[in-house]
């Protein structure tokens, strides 16, 4: 049967996409937070059903099962990880608590940064006072030992942590990424005290192994989160794996990673599972972009509580986020660039200081928008959409949830319209307009920061329940003129998992000066240092390839060097063809590429060749290409069917209410085209094309909204 099945767990729904013989289907199940295995199996079974088979039949013969899980995110937010002990260099035990003095704002909305007076830092995952112990040792930034390790002290501190009941050790010693001698010795000593053969042996996580990079705060957090997620993640994945095994699935269960690829369970770090859903979506968008020949794409996903976005720039394989934050924690992980703001259908509108605010606070699904009738009294974006006629109260989610338009209007009236002295219609319009403005303008800024250019040349893919109904609105503010509405927008993350290659990423932080400030000469010795680092990464990579049972000839190696000007913190990832840096000539070529990339990002006048240049990190990606999805094609429909109805929609305040034709997406065939204003209703969303925009459906049933003027 050779099916491929992709699964993506979200906060509300779990999505599955199945592919078999060119047939592409998708299905949803409600996410079961008490046990994620239940929703995994349910969604998979529904997708299998749409392929016309039982899950067991599909599984026993499946080519691949790929899973994007939120088990790690849940563990982090709910703080259900194991009790861990931290061993760190004496004098630096407060590193997590200090949090670079900025942890109070990390992962928080922009407005929080202005409110230093109300700053609150998150509680560290490993408490400082009891579970953090110090070791008298120090290695300097050249890797030389300044203070030798005191082995008796190590034994004593380990015993102290054991007495406190820790279930694992995290070891973060300063400059271990340059010289790991002390960290390795600590692990040996722990293993000597607690040999493998006995019960109660506890895992040891060394920071230089998890994240061999400069920056003790981020390295600590990366290592701690990796350790913290391990138990829950492992149990959950193995549980699912065993059930699949019982069904006859003998291939590896592949996991989607935020680093932009998939890998088998045995080659996946827990910390790489965080944010894998949105990243899978980026790869889904990339696959579609490639199919359509689009080089610059924005993926926008507007759900109930958040607006997530990712981007593809100049058809580049991967664009990384600089200094990513998971939840409240700043980490060192090569995360594919994506971001999230608190804007969605559930975003609450309120008045403060006579000013209208929309979000980031959300009514979530409970109590939800006022129109849900679940007790919510605060007006939300969805309420505004109902008041304005964009959403049919009787056909929300295909009619599965009946909405109360009167409750929506009442909430808008009391909380926004009356305080601002407006009509309900005006207030609802402003709520919608404001959230579109916030989303579009944030999109503009993030795109500009990540790509160096503004988004005018980008196509936006709009997915998520609230995406299509707001896409034209936020696109106006983001300067985007073309929007694609994928046919499986409701399960885009799951689709994305099937678009990801097998990828393993190996990194080593190493500051190598390739050209000194003021000099025009490149140091050939620097090339040799880099080659040494590449050689070490290749050893690890080849070991993993062998252990995965992959054909070494079927994988490709991609070398990237993270470069900066001398002493600059900003880095750019510069690809290097091949796996060898050939002396000064190659360094010079790398420098030229870096300068060009820099000028592209920040402008011609911003380059500073006299500042010299450094390589800060060496990254090796090993890629096993997966089978690419092809979109099914459909025959063009002979003619545009009549609208299924019409309703009054307040598109523009100046024009007032307008009777607007409404089409059902499933009644439209390829080739259908119309001019806005028009609504196109699907089972899980509504596409809204305003005046000046057109809508058409292509042969793959991809919807396109384009700005005409």
């Amino acid at each position, binding site marked *: 049967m050779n099916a491929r099945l992709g699964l993506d767990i979200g906060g509300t729904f779990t999505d599955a996409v199945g592919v078999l013989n060119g047939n592409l289907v998708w299905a949803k199940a409600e996410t079961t937070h008490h046990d994620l295995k239940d929703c995994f199996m349910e969604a998979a079974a529904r997708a299998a059903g749409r392929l016309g088979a039982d899950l067991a039949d599909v599984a026993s013969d499946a080519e691949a099962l790929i899973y994007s899980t939120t088990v790690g995110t849940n563990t982090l937010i709910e703080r259900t990880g194991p009790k861990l002990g931290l061993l760190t260099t*004496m*004098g*630096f*035990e*407060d*590193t997590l*608590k*200090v949090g*670079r*003095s*900025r942890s109070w*704002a990390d992962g928080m909305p*922009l407005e929080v*940064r*202005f409110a*230093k*007076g*109300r*700053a*609150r*830092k998150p509680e560290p995952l490993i408490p*400082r*006072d009891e579970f953090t112990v110090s070791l*008298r*040792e*120090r290695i*300097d*930034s*050249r890797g030389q030992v*300044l*203070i*030798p*390790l005191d082995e008796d002290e190590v034994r004593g501190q380990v015993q102290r942590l054991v007495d406190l009941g820790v279930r694992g050790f995290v070891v973060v010693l*300063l*400059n271990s*990424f340059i010289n790991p001698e002390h960290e390795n010795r600590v692990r040996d000593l722990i293993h000597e005290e607690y040999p493998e053969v006995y019960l109660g042996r506890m895992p040891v996580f060394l920071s230089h192994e998890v994240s061999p990079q400069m920056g*003790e705060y981020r390295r600590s957090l990366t290592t701690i989160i990796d350790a913290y997620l391990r138990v829950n993640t492992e149990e959950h994945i193995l549980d699912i794996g065993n059930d699949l095994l019982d069904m006859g699935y003998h291939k590896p269960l592949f996991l989607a990673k935020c680093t932009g690829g998939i890998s088998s369970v045995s080659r996946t770090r827990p910390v790489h599972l965080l944010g894998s859903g949105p990243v899978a979506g980026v790869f889904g968008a990339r696959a579609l972009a490639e199919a359509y020949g689009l080089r610059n794409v924005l993926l926008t996903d507007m759900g109930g509580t958040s607006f997530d976005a990712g981007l593809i720039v100049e058809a580049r394989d991967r664009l990384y986020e600089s200094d990513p934050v998971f939840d409240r924690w700043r980490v060192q992980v090569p995360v594919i660039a994506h971001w999230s703001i608190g804007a969605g259908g559930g975003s609450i509108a309120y008045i*403060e200081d*006579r000013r*209208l*605010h929309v979000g980031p606070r959300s009514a979530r699904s409970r109590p939800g928008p006022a129109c849900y009738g679940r007790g919510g009294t605060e007006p939300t974006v969805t309420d505004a959409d109902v008041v304005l006629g964009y959403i049919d109260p009787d056909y929300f989610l295909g009619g599965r949830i009946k909405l109360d338009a009167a409750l929506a209007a009442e909430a808008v009236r009391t909380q926004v319209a009356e305080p601002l002295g407006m009509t309900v219609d005006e207030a609802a319009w402003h709520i919608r307009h*404001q959230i579109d403005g*916030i989303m579009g*303008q*944030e999109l*503009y*800024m993030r795109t500009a920061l990540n790509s160096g250019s*503004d988004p005018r040349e980008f196509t936006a893919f709009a997915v998520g329940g609230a995406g299509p109904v707001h896409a034209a609105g936020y696109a106006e503010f983001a*300067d985007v003129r073309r929007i694609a509405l994928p046919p499986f927008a409701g399960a885009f993350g799951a689709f994305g998992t099937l678009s990801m290659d097998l990828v393993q990423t190996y990194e080593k932080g190493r500051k190598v*000066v390739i050209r000194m*400030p003021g000099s025009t000469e490149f140091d050939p010795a620097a090339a040799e240092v880099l080659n040494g680092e590449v050689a070490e990464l290749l050893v690890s990579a080849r070991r993993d390839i062998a252990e995965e049972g992959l054909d070494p000839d079927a994988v490709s190696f991609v070398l990237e060097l993270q470069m900066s*000007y001398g*002493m*600059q*913190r*900003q880095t750019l990832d510069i690809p290097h063809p091949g796996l060898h840096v050939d002396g000064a000539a190659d360094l010079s070529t790398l420098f030229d590429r870096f300068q060009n990339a820099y000028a592209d990002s920040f*402008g011609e*006048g*911003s380059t500073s060749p006299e*500042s010299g240049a450094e390589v800060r990190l060496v990254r090796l990606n090993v890629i096993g290409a997966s089978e690419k999805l092809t979109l099914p094609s459909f025959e063009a429909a002979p003619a545009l069917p009549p609208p299924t109805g019409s309703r009054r929609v307040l598109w523009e305040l100046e024009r007032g209410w307008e009777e607007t034709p409404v089409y059902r997406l499933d009644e439209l065939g390829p080739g259908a085209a119309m001019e806005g204003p028009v609504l196109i209703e699907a089972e899980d969303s509504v596409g809204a094309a305003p005046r000046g925009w057109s809508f058409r459906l292509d042969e793959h049933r991809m919807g396109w909204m384009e700005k005409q003027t």
Partner: protein
Amino acid sequence: MTSLRDQIKLHEGLVYDRHAYGKGPGWDPELIVEKAAPLSAIEREGYDLLSDVELEIFYHKMLTIVEEAREVWQNLSISDIILAGDMSTAVFTPSGDLAVASTGIHFHALLNYAQSKFILKYYRDDPTVGLRDGDIFFFNNPLAGSTHAPDMFTAMPVFHEGELVAWAEVGGHQGDCGSVSPGGFNPYATSRFEEGFHMAGVKIGENFRIRKDMLDYLCGSVRNPFVFAVELRSRVATCLRMRDRILREVERRGPAAVSGGLRRLIDRSSELASDRLRQINDGVYRSILFNDTIGAEKGLVRIPVTVIKEGGEMTILVQGVSPPNGKGPVHATWHLVRASQAVYLFAYFFRGLMPNVGLFEPLTFLIEGPSVANSPEDVAHTEGTIISAAVVQSFHIIGSKMLFDSPFRENVSAPFSRNMVALVFYGSNLFGYRATGITSTGNGAGQGARFDGDGEHSTGFYWASMTDAGEVEEFDARYPFTIIARGLLGTDYHGFGMYRGGSALIEVSMAYPNPVVMTSWGTSDVISHNPGLFGGYWGPPNPRLTITKNDALKLMAEGALPELTHHSLAAERQLGGDYAFESSSVNPKEFEIGDVFLCDTGSGGGYGDVLERDPEAVMTDVREGMISADVASRVYRVVYNEETLRVDHAATEALRNEERQARIARGKRFDDFIGGWLAQKPKEHLLTYYGDWPDPRVPGYDKPFWGEHD
């Protein structure tokens, strides 16, 4: 009925509502003291084009522009201070008033208007200068509106089809300004001519590029030319980015809507600020702070603050200030004192309102001059922020008292720590780079306790909204020294109270692997500037500590280095060597390999009575090493088992009641207390630069400072 404001009597012969110096080449103080300019033609044309709600979206757009610019600048810069976030990016109206500021140092944004206004008035129509699209201007002259010479500002006019629609500007501290002293802080400076180069509104570039001759001149004036050059280019690239974004918004909305919208943002802030003020009790509020130095020399200086709140307006009166001394760099300017208040106003008092110059519109500043707070022309200025911050700290105390009985009680707190010792270094790092700068430990100050909880430890830089204290491994590789301990290393090193102040990030560094030239910059060596609130204890003063000729390297090699904490070094002297507790204002000195220095930026004051602190919270403080057993027992009056840290609640309550009774017994009638207080006087040698005692401006004054002057 006489207004409260009318009851204030200003001294004759002194100035209050303007600078104590006059117009000069490149500066015009009359321009600096002006409030937001009258509407220009384009601002008037576009003023009503955006509805109130559309204005919110416009504000958000402008905020994304300045925040994008902030990130761009930080990405491009190689200056330690900019990397740490001690900078600002902002958009100004065509008339030069601050409309939108990024997170960063707000007072930088509030000072940048000075050059725009000067250029508009004096250079725009001057055929030798002019104002054209693509021009780049630069200034750092304190008399022209800067803080001090190391703070440098860059401005770019934004033109649309020949019409000026806005200004894009950035401001930030530079690692060097060509002063006698590396880093620019020269405690021995007696005039501004010893504090490096001073430029006032100079056109350094045209057609969007920096002129080569100007770049060479500037780089040739400083100790870190390569850092300076990169830094200046990054400023220009940042302004260009803002310009591009503003022009795109002009394309979308039209030039008048953008210019008028920027101006409307200012007026909107002003209206909302007045609204808030009207919800706060009227009254006259007072607070006072003293400084312990005039630069290199010890000397008491007085900085009292009186705030008169009436209706929707507020007057900040700085009167009874010590006179200028001409002996050191601790002199602020009128504009610096005013702009500095943004530290408190934006993050606390007016928190939640759009931070721009509109929040200053309902405020009147009366700053006595000539004085250390409103200095004359030729004195040295580099450490004037000590004075302006002292005004902020008093204003913070006053503001908290005002807000306690208001709908804005959430903003009530003891002030953020202003005590500071920041190390300024100069030397070669491990990779051979010449590095000059200030350590990011300046970004680790403790927060004052709040009305509803403890202050956070190490929360940022005093002057900025959000900053970054960085990571030691990066500093090891960047700096010409090595950090050997860094954390919350102080026990009993914060203000106690019902809620305690946040503790400072303390850094212990060593000259290693090379010798290094170091100096420092700071305040509060003896007298703290971190008051507590409503009975909370003050955050402690923090002199600089250096330990030379010590045995640290030997102990390290032997694996016998003791735990390095504030207590183990300052009190127990666990390293052998020569200990020097010094003023933070000293001349640069070369430190030998192995020499150790300790610095921090102070801890916040406490809130409320120590006897009301939850005894369990006291035990947490003991467990975390934040306080000693002695303080738990003698200050907080908690009875507990020292091994298990279990509290005896009944005995604690009895002990606390006993202390309450003892307090009553120690109490005096108010008049008796004041009489005794006025009879006290500091030693004469500390009053050399003070002025008359007790009121520097009123010889023979014999009343408390809130009393009548006649």
